[in-house]
Structures are given as C-alpha cells and as structure tokens.
C-alpha cells in the first residue's frame, strides 16, 4: 500500500458562534473568533489517499484527476467564500478547523476512484491544523 498526499489551498472567512448560547457565553468560549463580522484565513488542505500502485501506469491515483476532484468538491465551494453564510454544512455547525476537516472528508468520501480516503488534514495556520481519519 502507498499513501499519496495532494495539497490545495483556499481562502475563506468565518466566525465561531453557537446560536443556542447567549452572546456572553459565545464571547467567553470563542474569544476573538466570535466577532460576528468574521475574519479569515488562508487554509491549506492536505488529502491523503491509500491504494495499490497500478502496475501499468505506476500510479495510485492520477494526480490530475485528484486535483480536479478536490477543486470540484471542495475548493470551488469554499474558496473566497464566507463559510458560515455560504457553505451549507456550516449553517448549523461551527466552522472550526476540526469541523472543516470532517466536512471535507464527507465531501470526498467515495469520490476518489481506485483509492481509499486515508486522512484529511486542514491547516488554519502553519502552526495549527486538524486531522480527520473518518473515525466515529
């Protein structure tokens, strides 16, 4: 088995807010991330897939094909968007780095031919990232 990782980038706005809580609780838990006017990040997405090397092509997956899948399923929907306001899964789910990794997993699962999704890693900053392996 080989693990293959492809990177992609998107730049998005977001804020952290739980509608069930009063404003003071949102401010206490989420700090400056609770600013309702939002803020933004340059996110880096790393998608790792696992598979066997095709004896003829020498590929686990065609990288161009994987790039196009990431573009179609994630980047075209997240890039230069406000995650809370414009991406449906974050209407009810706080767009933390953890939840973005889970949401991207759900968008990609079953969409990559000949390989198994192994890990979704999302960097919010070079010094902060979340990983999701599809574990419940």
């Amino acid at each position, binding site marked *: 088995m080989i693990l293959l990782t492809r990177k992609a980038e998107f730049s998005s706005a977001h804020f952290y807010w739980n509608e069930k809580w009063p404003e003071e609780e949102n401010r206490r838990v989420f700090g400056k991330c609770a600013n309702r006017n939002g803020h933004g990040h340059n996110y880096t997405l790393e998608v790792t897939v696992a598979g066997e090397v095709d004896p003829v092509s020498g590929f686990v997956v065609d990288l161009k094909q994987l790039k196009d899948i990431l573009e179609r399923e994630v980047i075209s929907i997240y890039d230069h968007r406000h995650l809370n306001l414009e991406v449906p899964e974050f209407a009810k789910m706080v767009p933390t780095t953890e939840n973005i990794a889970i949401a991207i997993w759900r968008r990609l699962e079953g969409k990559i031919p000949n390989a198994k999704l192994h890990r979704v890693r999302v960097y919010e900053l070079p010094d902060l*990232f979340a990983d999701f392996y599809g574990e419940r």
Partner: protein
Amino acid sequence: MKAYLSRRYRLSASHRLHTEAYDAAKNRAVFGKCNNPHGHGHNYVVQVTVSGQVDPETGMVCNLADLDAFAKSNFIDRFDHSNLNTLDCFRESVSTTENLSIEAYRIFQRFPAAHLERVHVEETSNNSFDYAGGSDPGLI
C-alpha cells in the same frame, strides 16, 4: 466524530550533549561538536497532537486557548531561553532531542482537556523526533 488537533510551539534553548558515564575522550568521540564544553543552541519546534470527540456545541476537540495556556505555563515558560542541561529533567539524562521529546510528552500528558497522541520535535529543519509514549507515532 474523533479528530486530531496539532499545535506547533517554538522555544529557543542551549544544551550540551555530555554524560558522566563516559570519559572526556569518549564524550567527544560519541557526541562530536555537540560536546563543546560551552554548549550551543537551537530554535526548537514542538508539535503537540491531541485527540478527542469533537464537541457538537463548540466544534472543538478542546479549546485552543486552554491548550496554549497549558503549554505556556507548563512547558514554554520553563524551557524557552533556558540551558536545557540546568533543568531538573536533564540532571540524569543527556539533553538530546529524543529525551526532550519524551519530557514534552510527559508534560502534555497532564493536559486535562484532551488525549495526548504524540509529540513531534524539530531540533533543526533537518532533524525531527517523534514520541507517542512507546506506541508507534504513525503518519506525521
């Protein structure tokens, strides 16, 4: 849903690789320029990975502000701009980055809000070490 959160912390410290178990010649032979009597230093990066269920209310494994505060008071404030060899944890052991990784693991294991998975320490951009409490640290 179980997710993993990783945070990179930076600290600058000096050290000297030396053990009383060896004589001067053997220390020089084994540790080379790292045995320089006056020490030398590095900008270390300590990458801490914690895991847990993502809280449906907060969307978080743990509050990053809590992890940062824990890291500052229990780790960074003790190690940053120190001479590692003068710290209690290196009184009996050589201040290699392997041993620094193990010590960082021991410290972050006490973080109460999430489960510590592993510690990854970069001594320079070319050397890094991983410790997961004796388990396989896995794909970094």
